[in-house]
């Protein structure tokens, strides 16, 4: 634990993420205004400090909705979607990777070819094609995001299985009569946890980017849902007279991505013995 806290990247990245998660979770208490109901009398008010009223600290958007409220409620949706997608991708990827590594043979060959095929598509193109077919419900979005992410885990876990399988202690366990399942559960899985944690943390950043990118293009969450990507897209039309509309959600996305990237890098440095000094 103390080693964890001596890593500036882990502490910095972790603090950013925790702050954003807390702020989003406490949205109803922090934001006084409704994130969805329009108030046409208060359209495009600037943030406080730039001539705006105290009631709307970050100003209002083109429909008079409080930007802070939309930001915080939008954070809830984006973070939950991204976290679910990472969990689903990691779960599926680990199972597939373990199966491919342990069982080998045709299954292994098939899974690895499938991974190659999927990696040949730019993630966002594949995502928008699938979204166009299955729709933009939150469940569909999570599935599309997870689908784009399982390959990383599957490849990592499979590689780990192939290396660890030959280790002396695994051979010893086998000699003592341990079956496939026991070897996987007791000896292999715990050894793959570190890389999975690192991947998951960095991938959270990718998922937030992908989800907000899809929403930005109009292929993710649909209005009037508060979503960071959607807010950015809406703000694009008001660049010349209300620049804060597009600026604020962009800062939020960048902060989360930065936090998750820092955390991922820090964890990698910490958990990879080759990089440890």
């Amino acid at each position: 634990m103390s080693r964890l806290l001596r890593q500036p990247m882990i502490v910095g990245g972790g603090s950013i993420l925790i702050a954003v998660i807390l702020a989003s979770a406490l949205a109803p208490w922090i934001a006084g205004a409704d994130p969805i109901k329009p108030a046409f009398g208060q359209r495009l008010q600037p943030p406080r400090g730039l001539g705006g009223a105290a009631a709307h600290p970050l100003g209002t958007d083109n429909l008079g909705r409080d930007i802070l409220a939309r930001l915080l409620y939008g954070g809830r949706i984006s973070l939950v979607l991204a976290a679910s997608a990472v969990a689903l991708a990691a779960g599926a990827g680990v199972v597939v990777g373990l199966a491919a590594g342990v069982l080998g043979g045709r299954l292994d060959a098939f899974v690895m070819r499938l991974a190659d095929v999927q990696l040949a598509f730019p993630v966002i193109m594949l995502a928008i094609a699938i979204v166009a077919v299955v729709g933009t419900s939150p469940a569909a979005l999570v599935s599309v995001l997870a689908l784009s992410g399982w390959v990383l885990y599957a490849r990592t876990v499979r590689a780990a299985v192939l290396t660890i399988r030959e280790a002396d202690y695994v051979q010893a366990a086998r000699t003592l009569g341990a079956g496939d399942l026991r070897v996987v559960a007791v000896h292999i899985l715990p050894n793959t946890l570190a890389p999975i944690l690192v991947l998951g943390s960095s991938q959270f950043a990718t998922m937030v980017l992908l989800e907000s990118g899809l929403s930005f293009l109009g292929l993710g969450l649909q209005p009037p849902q508060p979503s960071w990507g959607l807010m950015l897209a809406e703000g694009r039309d008001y660049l010349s007279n209300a620049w804060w509309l597009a600026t604020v959600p962009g800062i939020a996305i960048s902060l989360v991505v930065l936090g998750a990237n820092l955390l991922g890098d820090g964890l990698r440095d910490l958990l990879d013995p080759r990089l440890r000094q």
Partner: protein
Amino acid sequence: MHAYVLRRVWQSAVTLVGVSILVFVILRVIPGDPAKMLLPEGAPESAVEALNRHLGLREPLWVQYGIFLRSVVRGDFGQSFQYRSPALRVVVERVPATIQLALCAMALTVLVGVSIGIVAAVRQGSAYDYAGTVLAVLGQSLPNFWLGIMLMLLFGVTLRWLPTSGFHGWQSLVLPSVTLAAFPTALVARLTRSSLLEILGQEYIRTGRAKGLGEPRVVLRHALKNATIPLLTVLGLQIGTLLGGAVITESIFAWPGMGKLVVDAIFFRDFPVVQTILILSATIFVVINLLVDLLYTVIDPRIRYG
């Protein structure tokens, strides 16, 4: 070497067949009645039935796939109903704009990314190193759709130096290329730095310095050359990032390339065009990465004879 080349070509071919199967499954099998998907909304029942028969959709699935694959190989990707001409032609017309943008972004990535990486590695721990790292972390964290909008706000709306959209001369190319290049540049800078640092600690570098070679020669000739393999690999994989990033960048800057086309096509439910772009971009990715792998054999004799 022969075996290596053959193996890679074979793998790429298998991947491409997989690509066609995946596109077939996504656009033809999942949606229920593909003929309804392939026709504009509100098409008469008789047209749906006619197309069903024309596409062989009353046949078993593997026969349907055979028909699909045969027409794709012939270059027949169906008719775009948004443009009322062959989908392949519609897409190919947009390819040069995307390639132009991707090449500019790639050039920026290599020039800026490698330079930052070299300076950061050679002056490890200095202010340059620190600034380079901050830039790289930022480059990987700023979403490109936001970066694009902010660049537009600063250089287009506020300073009025550069055009914010469309396709008029080299000035139009600046903002989209920078937007598209930001992420891969950051990645390349970090990778160059870390591989150079590892290489600069090697014995042969010390030998080079000991025998009196100047620092530029040591770094550029001896160290950088050995860092090219990981760099090339990453650059090859970044083709995917560029093609994907083009979807968003082109949409922001109204750049008339493949990326904007695919988004427009999705909204028009122009599935023949979507299908063409998916297959074309995956093919570009696979072929370029095959070429990169073949290039290794030229650069690194260990792969050639290994």
